[in-house]
């Protein structure tokens, strides 16, 4: 490891551990601070995460090869991954569990993004949470049994200590060098989310929402654990990277499952036999192949409409890659290097492999964890309830970072996903983005609209990853983190400005009172809708970050549909939803900021937030506009491509190449071909959604209430969130309680019942035993005693005390004895 690399590791470790240190000090803030009015703990939290940002940003600057990033060559040289081990958790023969680090450009990017957004949100929270800076805080939402409100000391320090703990966990998740470690921090961010959602512990709704969030996540984690078990048993390691155990090289997961070149399944549907494969195992990836030529031709056609920087990458890896499967396509062989050399047992010479279905189980299992964490269908129900937490929490945990961790993991673990798993991911994302968007249309709580929008956008990211747009999905993750945290903070600013009013029907016209908030929110709204001026001015499109990333996802799904006609829904649903997104986001903006005030009391008391809250808004809106500058030739996308799994470029094929189960991942250049087309579609959808919202809520040509009346059934269904909560209540929660009661009943009724029965029977037997003793044995003894006694008594009469009589008895006795003697022994 070079000095530079070890410096990067140290910087990231510092950025990771500083918040933990902060937490350990801050959590006792109630003791070491002089009063609840002190901001010391909070400032410490800000300092920790701020230093973390500086460290991460320096690491990013140090770590990447700027010439490769800004130049026109392939982006795979942007950064060599750095990996290593902190310390061992346990070691059992060849099985090693440890805390590792794996740093590539994605890690660095995530670190910088998380720490930057977290810093902004921490600063914002200094203002937002300032009503906690008191010794007597009144919680108006809690009604006590005596009719009063709940009074408590302020908990400013506690909020910041939990935020620090969260930052530590989130950064640990990103830094993790093995999937087990990801799981460790996965749970830790979960518990931080629990603590922060339930920050107002006195509110029943908050603690219930916190429980729901954690337990629903655990349902996903149940799947995650199954995935882990499969990986652990089949691969024998959790590490992503190649490493050494006792100086013996051990391949990491990504190497073991590395793809081999497909026998161009697109073109001639021919399978290469396993034997041929072995001969073939040496060919390097970049070698010229006939099909490579073909792609090259296509590339030239595409060149006209696309910037030059891209096609070099596509050219470099234009081979279709697939898993190294056997003829029957039932097992996947594991590799010990990236050239496709299979791992063979030294003794038996059998090649190490994993059954194909188990690989799918592993992938779907790990993805189940992502479903829970990223609130995807069918586990999406916890996220809207999680809005019970303070708004900065919603901004940081429940929009920008933790919920995106599911997408991050899906991206990080992408090499392990078989095409079938990717299809599952795509469909889950597709369903989620539609369901959540429809609910967002009818939500009236400003934070809930944003929550559903978050779910929907996370669905987009999942879809992007699922249809083979690896970089597109993560691209959207980064841009979304900025604009969504911006919007949450802006909504937080509105909520504070309106004295904790969250219902949009009571707002309206607020832009006059809070211009900065209104303006920055508009930036976020435009960014999420993907509005843009689609013509190049000064060589670049005028577009905010969301346009570029959503465009990339829609293009990927269009290319995917082109390659797999049967999965057309994966393109049309997100396209329609892009319109819905624009509609509900503009509805939110118009509802809140435009028009005439609907509730005079709220409007009169509304005020712009202080600088400590508006400055983070401005910083975030800057990034929401510019972070994706340049689109797919910009630096951000280039950074992501630096970490892209090698088989993404050329597209990949599923194991079955024929029939309905065939899945073909679009190659990069296939996506490029449709990019312009997809961009237009998405833009048209977004603009129509926005226009529609303007008509309804901006100038009110149609009264939304009429629509509500005409479609009251649909409306109720949507307001009730597609009735998932009711369904789960009936399907899971009630049965669990019934079984729980049944178990206790079984203990008391049957096991203890049996024991009690046994003990009663033992007592019965003892009683019988006693009776037998008393009546039979004792009776017999008593009878003998009685008889003896009686005979003794009767014999007593013989005892007269007369010597003569006694002498006569003796004489008679002796006589009798002699007679007996002579009778018995006559001789």
């Amino acid at each position, binding site marked *: 490891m070079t000095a530079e690399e070890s410096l990067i590791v140290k910087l990231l470790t510092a950025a990771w551990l500083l918040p933990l240190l902060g937490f350990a000090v801050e959590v006792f803030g109630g003791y070491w601070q002089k009063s609840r009015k002190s901001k010391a703990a909070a400032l410490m939290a800000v300092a920790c995460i701020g230093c973390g940002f500086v460290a991460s940003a320096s690491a990013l600057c140090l770590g990447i090869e700027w010439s490769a990033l800004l130049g026109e060559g392939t982006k795979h040289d942007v950064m060599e991954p750095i990996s290593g081990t902190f310390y061992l958790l346990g070691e059992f023969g060849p099985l090693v569990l440890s805390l590792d680090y794996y740093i590539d450009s994605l890690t660095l990017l995530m670190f910088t993004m998380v720490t930057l957004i977290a810093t902004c949100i921490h600063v914002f929270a200094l203002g937002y949470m300032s009503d906690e800076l008191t010794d007597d805080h009144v919680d108006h939402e*809690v009604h006590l049994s005596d009719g009063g409100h709940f009074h408590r000391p302020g908990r400013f320090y506690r909020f910041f200590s939990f935020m620090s703990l969260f930052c530590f966990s989130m950064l640990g998740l990103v830094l993790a060098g093995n999937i087990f470690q990801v799981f460790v921090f996965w749970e830790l961010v979960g518990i931080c989310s629990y603590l922060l959602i339930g920050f107002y512990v006195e509110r029943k709704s908050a603690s219930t929402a916190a429980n729901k969030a954690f337990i629903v996540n655990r349902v996903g984690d149940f799947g995650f654990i199954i995935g882990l078990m499969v990986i652990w048993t089949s691969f024998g390691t959790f590490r992503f990277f190649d490493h050494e155990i006792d100086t013996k090289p051990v391949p990491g997961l990504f190497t073991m499952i590395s793809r081999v070149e497909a026998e161009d399944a697109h073109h001639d549907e021919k399978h290469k036999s396993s034997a041929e494969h072995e001969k073939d195992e040496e060919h390097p990836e970049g070698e010229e192949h006939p099909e490579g030529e073909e792609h090259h031709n296509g590339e030239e056609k595409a060149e006209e409409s696309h910037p030059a920087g891209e096609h070099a990458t596509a050219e470099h890896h234009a081979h279709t890659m697939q898993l190294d499967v056997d003829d029957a396509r039932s097992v996947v062989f594991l590799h010990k290097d990236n050239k496709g050399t299979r791992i063979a047992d030294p003794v038996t010479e059998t090649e190490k492999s994993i059954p194909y279905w188990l690989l799918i189980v592993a992938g779907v299992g790990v993805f189940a964890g992502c479903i829970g964490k990223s609130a995807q269908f069918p586990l999406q129900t916890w996220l809207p309830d999680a809005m019970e937490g303070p708004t900065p929490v919603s901004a940081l945990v429940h929009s920008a970072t933790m919920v995106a961790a599911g997408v991050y993991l899906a991206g990080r673990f992408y090499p392990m996903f078989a095409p079938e798993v990717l299809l599952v991911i795509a469909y889950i994302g597709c369903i989620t983005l539609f369901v959540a968007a429809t609910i967002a249309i009818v939500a009236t709580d400003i934070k809930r609209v944003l929550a559903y929008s978050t779910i929907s956008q996370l669905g987009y990211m999942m879809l992007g990853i699922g249809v083979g747009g690896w970089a597109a999905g993560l691209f959207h993750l980064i841009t979304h983190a900025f604009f969504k945290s911006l919007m949450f903070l802006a909504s937080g600013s509105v909520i504070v400005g309106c004295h904790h009013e969250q219902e949009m029907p009571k707002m309206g016209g607020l832009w006059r009172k809070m211009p900065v908030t209104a303006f920055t929110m508009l930036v976020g709204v435009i960014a999420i809708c993907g509005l843009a001026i689609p013509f190049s001015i000064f060589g670049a499109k005028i577009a905010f970050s969301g346009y570029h990333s959503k465009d990339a996802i829609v293009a990927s799904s269009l290319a995917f549909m082109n390659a797999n006609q049967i999965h057309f829904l994966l393109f049309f649903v997100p396209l329609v939803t892009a319109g819905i997104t624009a509609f509900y986001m503009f509805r939110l903006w118009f509802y809140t900021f435009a028009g005439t005030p609907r509730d005079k009391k709220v409007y009169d008391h509304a005020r712009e937030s202080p600088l400590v809250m508006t400055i983070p808004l401005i910083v975030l809106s800057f990034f929401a506009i510019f972070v994706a500058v340049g689109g797919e030739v910009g630096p951000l996308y280039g950074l992501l491509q630096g970490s892209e799994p090698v088989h993404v470029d050329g597209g990949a094929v599923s194991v079955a190449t024929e029939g309905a189960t065939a899945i073909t991942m679009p190659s990069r250049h296939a996506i490029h071909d449709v990019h312009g087309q997809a961009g237009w579609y998405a833009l048209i959808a977004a603009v129509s959604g926005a226009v529609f919202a303007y008509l309804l809520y901006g100038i009110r040509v149609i009264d939304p209430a009429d629509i509500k009346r005409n479609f009251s059934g649909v409306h109720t269904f949507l307001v009730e969130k597609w009735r998932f909560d009711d369904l789960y209540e009936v399907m899971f929660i009630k049965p669990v309680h019934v079984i729980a009661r049944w178990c206790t009943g079984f203990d008391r009724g049957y096991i*203890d019942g049996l024991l009690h029965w046994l003990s009663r029977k033992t007592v019965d037997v003892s009683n019988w035993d006693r009776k037998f003793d008393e009546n039979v044995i004792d009776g017999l003894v008593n009878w003998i005693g009685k008889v003896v006694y009686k005979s003794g008594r009767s014999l007593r009469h013989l005892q007269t005390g007369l010597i003569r009589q006694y002498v006569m008895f003796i004489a008679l006795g002796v006589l009798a004895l002699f007679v007996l003697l002579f009778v018995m022994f006559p001789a």
Partner: protein
Amino acid sequence: MDSTTLLSLIIFTPTVGALFLWAFDRKAEESMRYCALVFTTITFVLTLFLLGEFDRDDPGIQPVLVQVNESDATEYERLEAYHVATEGEVLDGVKLTAGQIVSDGKAYDESQIQRGVVHRWIGQWNINYTLGYDGISVPLVLLTSFVSLLSLLAAWNIKKHVRGFLILFLLLESGMLGVFLSLDFFLFYVFWEVMLLPMYFLIGIWGGPRKEYAAIKFFLYTLVGSVLMLIAMLMVYYDSGQSFDLQYLARVGQGLEDGLSFSPTVQMAAFILLFIGFAIKVPIFPFHTWLPDAHVEAPTPISMILAGVLLKMGGYGILRIAFPLCPEGAAAAAWWLALIGAVSIIYGAFAAMAQTDFKRLVAYSSVSHMGYVLLGIAVWKINEDTGATIGSEYWLMGMNGAMFQMLAHGVSSAGMFFMVGVIYDRVHHRDLNQFGGLMGLMPFYSGLAVGIFFAGLGLPGLCGFIGEVFVVLSTWNFSKPLAIVAAAGVILTAGYILWAIQRVFLGPEYKGPHKEDITPMNGREASIAVVLLVFAIVLGVYPESMFGLMRGSMKLLVDSLEIAMR
């Protein structure tokens, strides 16, 4: 210090303390408490000495002794500095075989050395006073003295018959330490029974309203287990040419002694008897119903001992006696063991969810958590035809995970019971539906309690996680359905613990009686809770601290059982 002395001191220091207590005036309760505290502290320090003496590179039983002169097989002295030769090691130009003991430039075969200190006790029946320790018992001995010390501190507010309580408490500690240190089956049995009586009285006299019922239930359950163990003991005694030596019996059981071995039938029968005997102690479904009653009625410190140490004796017995003596029985029963382990996990969690008594909930959580111990021990997958073990490293991991789970549960459940005890001392009820708002009334207590409950929930970074997840990960290799069942436990565990936390600590106001008595923890209570939470964190963050101790011995056990089955 001489090894015999050290080991005997560890076991009998509490007994001596119990005798000492007679010297006090009946009214000098405070002095008696301090006296008992001094003796438990000395015991704890002695176990730390033992940890210092323990050589973690030697997987076998320690101390290692060598014959003083070749002809006399009765006099041994301890080898101070030695190491176990590895394959291919050369000493003075002579190639050594693996397993030879090298000390001071000399190599000894296993036949020349003796592992563990042996003193003749009842010669007529070949009963010896054999003590020794290895990587399996040392962590448990430490846990015992540690939990005993904390429990004694937790017992400070026992007001009734203080002397009697302390005497019984110290006798109990002697019994527990004796169980973990004795290597003679008869001695083991004696200590096992010694432990039983003090426990009976501690529950029966100092317990809650239904103490008589609970005490008798506990006593009878355990006695049944003891009787089964006694039968098995006599079986192996007569089948092995009348020996109670556990090391020798294990060699016989594993077929390493010429001409002597237990037949498969004997192994099977003895295993079942031993297993039920130990399973009652663990406790494992369906032998668990004594536990909730005993816990609910027992005073807080006794609950801590029960959950923290006594339950581990079952697991220890399975590891030390049932498996090594009857490998064939164990292998044949492995699937059933794993099944009831998995069932215990789920059943205990479900039952915990339905409880309204706080202590009962914690008690059922013990049933659930101890299920992982059995599951981890049982994941021994054997190729039926060859007898070869499939994926032995996964079994090794399961064994280690099970052992770790015992230690982790010792810390977390003792902590949970203590936390329940603290609030019970104040409000004198345990009805989950009559709590609430403690976070506001006792913030420090609530913070610590939530931390300890999170350890029980299996949160990463805390001790409960490592044991559970290691066991679950190792189960997939053994049986996929059982692994899935066991993994489902994580959802239920989160459910009942979070629900309990919500009902007790969260919410705006306290709903039960005696609100005015809710005061912050005093220094004694706070320090017990802090120490337990700190240990929960240390074990969770750096589990290698414990794995490092047990690794060698676990490997030896797994390897020898594997060889026995081939």
